[in-house]
């Protein structure tokens, strides 16, 4: 099967007047279609840089990057990208926030509206569609941001610490919600997180990056024996602790925040 994402010796260097920062070095890995892969690594190691390159926000200056078998720049389908904060626009209603991407791409078709209405209902936001973001709780806002991203029907989704602005309880909840949604829809997902439990419980695979310049240090395939596998049940699987300890050993500890 064609992998959805293939990186081969990808590197990136920032240039500023203060000097140059090598953020990524020789990163190679591939992600299969429908796979959920987490990336962990110390803060400042280059995780966001990596996602920015995949999303096309930064140019690919070293190495090779194929998406669905095509070079990065030839892949024109939408790539979903969720940031740390929800960045809902305060002056737009939830509905108009969700349709933002479709509006930009002039794809606000009746079919798209049906899709959005369905997602709003499924994720419990339908009654809030005409409210403004400030009336919603943190978890609801993050779900709205997810719908905004999914409304473009991306085949590839990049999540950059999407839950870290939420408090612990809400985070578990939202991670559960979003994990289930993404597994159902079989969207290929790359999740950057500094929470190892989150990474292990949500993913099919966990990649560990070294501190800067980021290099791929370890690649764990996670298989947990729980049914049904959701982010919260996964934490009770017997293998969970072993994976946790293994990943924990690989990560540079000085900089990892909150491990458990």
């Amino acid at each position, binding site marked *: 099967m064609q992998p959805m994402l293939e990186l081969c010796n990808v590197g990136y260097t920032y240039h500023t007047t203060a000097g140059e920062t090598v953020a990524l070095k020789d990163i190679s890995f591939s992600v299969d279609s429908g796979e959920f892969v987490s990336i962990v690594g110390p803060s400042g190691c280059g995780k966001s840089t990596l996602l920015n390159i995949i999303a096309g926000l930064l140019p690919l200056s070293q190495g090779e990057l194929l998406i669905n078998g095509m070079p990065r720049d030839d892949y024109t389908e*939408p790539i*979903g990208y969720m*940031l740390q904060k929800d*960045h809902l*626009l*305060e002056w737009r209603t939830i509905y108009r926030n969700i349709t*933002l991407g479709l509006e*930009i*791409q002039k794809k606000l078709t009746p079919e798209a509206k049906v899709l959005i209405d369905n997602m709003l209902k499924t994720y419990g936001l339908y009654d809030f569609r005409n409210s403004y973001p400030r009336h919603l709780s943190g978890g609801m806002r993050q779900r709205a941001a997810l719908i905004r991203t999914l409304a473009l029907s991306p085949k590839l989704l990049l999540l950059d610490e999407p839950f870290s602005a939420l408090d612990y309880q809400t985070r578990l909840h939202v991670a559960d919600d979003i994990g289930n949604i993404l597994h159902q829809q079989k969207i290929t997902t790359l999740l950057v997180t500094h929470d190892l439990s989150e990474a292990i419980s949500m993913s099919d695979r966990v990649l560990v990056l070294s501190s800067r310049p980021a290099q791929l240090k370890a690649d764990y395939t996670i298989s947990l024996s729980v049914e049904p596998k959701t982010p919260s049940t996964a934490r009770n699987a017997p293998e969970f602790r072993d994976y946790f300890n293994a990943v924990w050993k690989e990560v540079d500890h000085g900089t990892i925040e909150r491990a458990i």
Partner: protein
Amino acid sequence: MELSKEQSEFLHRQKKEKLQVRCMQWFIFLGFLILWELSADFEWINSFIFCSPSIVARCFWEMLQEGSLFTHIGITLLETLVSFSIVILGSILIAILLWWNPKLSKILEPYLVILNSLPKSALAPILIVWLGANYKTIIVCAISVAVFGSILNIYTGFVTVEADKLKLIKTLGGNRLDCLRLVVIPASLENILSVMKVNIGLCLVGVIIGEFLAARAGLGYLIIYGSQVFKMDWVLLGILLLCIIAIILYALLHALEKQMKY
């Protein structure tokens, strides 16, 4: 909803205090007018130089009847509104240009800062030489008072919009124009309104400076001409009307601001 006893007492106290403040404000104002009037009537002060409320009121009434009052007010108001509109539209456009082109903004920044800190009344005499003693000078004068600060403020508002919000638009496939119309401008509306509130006052100042030097009509002309021919009632009436105009214009913008709150 039923209010608790403490809450309604609290509200009652608040209301009472507000009323007291209002009463005191009117008391000071009326007290001042009465004292002024009495001092003039009993010749404690020279009413030729210091005038008196009743003389100003009579002057107001006369000018109202002969209609010249409307001419003066209308001209000043028109000049203010024209220069205000040009300042606002112009500075939004220029701020957009600067935002769009960071290099241009780097090049022009020192000029803007210097022009902004220049006392603009110093420009008025040159403007008269260049443009003649007419309404053009007055409008350009008013624009010069307000426009540089206005550009700088609006531009600063533009560039302080959260970078991640722009990133969001890009991740959704938007270009720079989308960033501008979907994020930068809507996020700056509040700031633009507060810039407008400052500028309406500045434009009025600029118009009066211009009218002092280059007008044949208008409230600034009324004030300067009145002082030259020792008609102090014109001067004071002019100042009073300016106060009222300033308050009304400010209140209008304030109401607009309230309207815009989503």
